[in-house]
């Protein structure tokens, strides 16, 4: 048997981070466009208030002055980006993280509920998916309920979860985590069911020719085959989990967490505070999704999926 030469394609593996360079320009362009639109909208939306002020004071309305004032109102309809940035800076870097006014403190409250809910959701989702794939009765009965569960507005069910759990003496972190779980398990179920069923007839026939047990087929074929699906759905789940945690903070009277900041902000018309909490939540969500994505890429690379 003489075939010493290597006749296969050998592409150099692309690094995880090299792709970032190529996408930087389009991303920056979009960000710039958003800022332009945001500033424009802030000017337009905050202008009527400046006009009212001028009228009430009986001074002449000067457009250029008024325009510059729209960028520095205390309770603007739409705060300008730099106002939000300043607020973010003030409430993260310049405040002690133990302070009730620190966004890091509130962010951590929300993050802890998010992570716990995400963990529960992932475990619950995987367990349900395994049941659905391996048990015909579960396949027929559970999936419709899983889908139905997501048609109920989370805002409607969140207060009930809080109230019911409170009645049995569970309060604090867990109820919020359960609301996160409620949102997070769904994408995991759907993704894992698809992933566990992803091995084709050939791959499963192969296991049959080896006379492999159901256990061996699960651990050596179905579970590893589902990994790319699992990480994709975990990315969706972690973002949903954050939404769940924030929503869970609203009905409790909003003592702490990003949700509390949003609610308090809207009670007192503190639009800058609302927007900074929103941006903080967005940054948190993006970071969580990125971390899960990176973990997924590392696992897939280790497993040989990535090329």
């Amino acid at each position, binding site marked *: 048997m003489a075939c010493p030469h290597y006749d*296969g394609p050998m592409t150099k593996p692309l690094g995880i981070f090299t792709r970032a360079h190529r996408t930087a320009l389009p991303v920056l362009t979009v960000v710039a466009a958003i800022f332009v639109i945001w500033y424009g909208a802030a000017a337009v939306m905050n202008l009527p208030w400046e006009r009212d002020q001028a009228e009430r004071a009986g001074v002449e309305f000067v457009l250029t002055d008024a325009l510059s004032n729209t960028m520095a109102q205390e309770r603007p309809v739409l705060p300008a980006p730099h106002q939000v940035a300043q607020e973010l800076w003030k409430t993260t870097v310049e405040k002690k993280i133990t302070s009730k006014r620190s966004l890091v403190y509130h962010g951590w409250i929300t993050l802890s509920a998010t992570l716990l809910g995400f963990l529960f959701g992932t475990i619950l989702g995987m367990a349900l998916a395994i049941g659905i794939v391996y048990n015909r009765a579960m396949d027929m009965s559970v999936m419709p309920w899983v889908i139905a569960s997501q048609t109920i507005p989370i805002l409607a069910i969140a207060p009930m979860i809080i109230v019911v759990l409170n009645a049995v003496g569970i309060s604090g972190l867990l109820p919020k985590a359960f609301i996160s779980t409620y949102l997070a398990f769904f994408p995991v179920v759907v993704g894992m069911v698809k992933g566990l069923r992803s091995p*084709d007839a050939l*791959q499963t*026939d*192969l*296991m049959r020719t080896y*006379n492999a047990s159901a256990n061996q087929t699960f651990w050596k*074929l179905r579970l590893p085959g589902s990994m790319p699906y699992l990480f994709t759905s975990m990315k969706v789940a972690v973002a949903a989990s954050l939404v769940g945690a924030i929503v869970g903070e609203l009905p409790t009277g909003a003592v702490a967490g990003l949700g509390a900041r949003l609610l308090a902000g809207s009670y007192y018309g503190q639009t800058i505070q609302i927007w900074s909490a929103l941006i903080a939540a967005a940054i948190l969500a993006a970071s969580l999704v990125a971390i899960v994505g990176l973990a997924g890429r590392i696992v897939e690379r280790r497993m*040989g999926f990535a090329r």
Partner: protein
Amino acid sequence: MSVVSAQSLSLTFETNDGPVHALKDVDLTIEKGEFVSFIGPSGCGKTTFLRVIADLEQPTGGTITVNGVSPEQARLNRAYGYVFQAAGLYPWRTIARNIALPLEIIGMPKRERRERIERVLELVDLKGFGGKFPWQLSGGMQQRASIARALAFDADLLLMDEPFGALDEIVRDHLNEQLLELWARTEKTICFVTHSIPEAVYLSTKIVVMSPRPGRVTDVIDSTLPRERPLDIRESPEFLEIAHRVREGLRAGHSYD
């Protein structure tokens, strides 16, 4: 004792469009050490027959034994290695670990596994590629790896379902040559499904010509070619004569209804 023995074997699939007779009254005996090719147009039941031997399909009539026992018992005894049309390597396992898969399942100790992997990699000329992932190998190399995997637990019977069907002519020639060498060296019994007349004639000691609707055996040709076969044997008159007989058999069984 023959390796495979089928008497009036039938398999009918019930479909929405009515019954499909994938196999009808197939009688066939395969002896130890033979290289048997199954050739015929699509739908003639050649793959189905192979899958019945492997206990991947259940016949609806007739009897079949593999190594003297039922196909199911033979499968439980791990009596055969199966090579599919596509390599079907698990993408998350390296070549060596793909080959290790059947060995892990039968519970072979790690040290023994490693030796076995080395040996079969050498057998299919993939020495040194054990650490590569499937996507790093060409199609031909992947198919060789899948043959190595089928050889791994050293069953005496090798079932191959159009293993080289998706490969180009040059790679296919090369692999055919290697397969003959491997067969000579290991003295296995090989059942080989193919579409290609030259491939069937070049490889086989026995050619089973099949025809569709219903799937049945129309001719069984015992090859008169020597076991030692260089590639250019394909231009010899003897070769062409057998090829002619195969073609006639195919034509006779093929009705365009």
